[in-house]
């Protein structure tokens, strides 16, 4: 697998480590209630197909990335800096 880091270009997947679904960027407010926090911390979809994930380019530039990945083919789609994704959410 190769991942196109927006800063470093296309790199071997061994330079990256995987965090989990990009849902982690959508932190609920403190008073959001038990259900919202339960979903945020524990409950995940398990799609056969495209999903959005957080990857860390730890052996490269040190960026957190939001990457689209197809869980069936392991094909990567759009890869963005998590910083930009987070700013766009604000």
């Amino acid at each position: 697998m190769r991942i196109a880091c927006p800063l470093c270009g296309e790199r071997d997947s061994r330079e990256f480590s995987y965090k989990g679904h990009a849902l982690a960027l959508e932190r609920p407010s403190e008073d959001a209630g038990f259900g919202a926090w339960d979903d945020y911390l524990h409950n995940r979809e398990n799609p056969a197909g495209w999903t959005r994930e957080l990857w860390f380019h730890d052996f490269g530039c040190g960026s957190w990335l939001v990457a689209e990945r197809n869980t069936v083919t392991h094909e990567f789609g759009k890869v963005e800096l998590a910083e930009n994704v987070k700013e766009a959410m604000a």
Partner: protein
Amino acid sequence: MTELKALSPAAGLLPLEIGGAALREDEMRQLTLVAPFKGKEAALAKALEAAHGLRWPEAGETSVSGAVRLVWFGRGAALLMGGEASSKLAPYAALTDQSDAWSCLVLEGAGARDVLARLTPLDMRDVAFPMGATARTEVFHMACSITRLAAESWQIMGFRSMAKTLVHDLQVAMEGVAARAS
């Protein structure tokens, strides 16, 4: 006061010459990590130009002015090598002296690229990694910085605490490439 004797990170381990590749320790230089504060990138670039005659490097680039180099060193950071950072940069960037933190090696020779190919997943072809190109990447499970200095010369920087491991891994790869060639 006690006079302490400075030792370079790879003291006693280098130089090595095996087959078509040679590995030596680069001279010790002053190293300052320059990390622009949020929103101060443009102001820092101006100050760098004025104080050092250096352009802020884009990802994967090196900027050179005389003996001083500014090497892209990851997201939002570059390493100033071979000179003291001007205090005029201080309002716009975090400046951290890292002179003692890195071991700087130089791998060169006709076989150098084949040695690197055994250790890093980086694309080392001329089109992908021309002169002056730099990358943060993996060198045999260690996070390193590789910069192309000349046609057959690459600078490899690893954490000082892992200098012996870095030299060992490079030596094993050099021996492997030499054995293949004979």
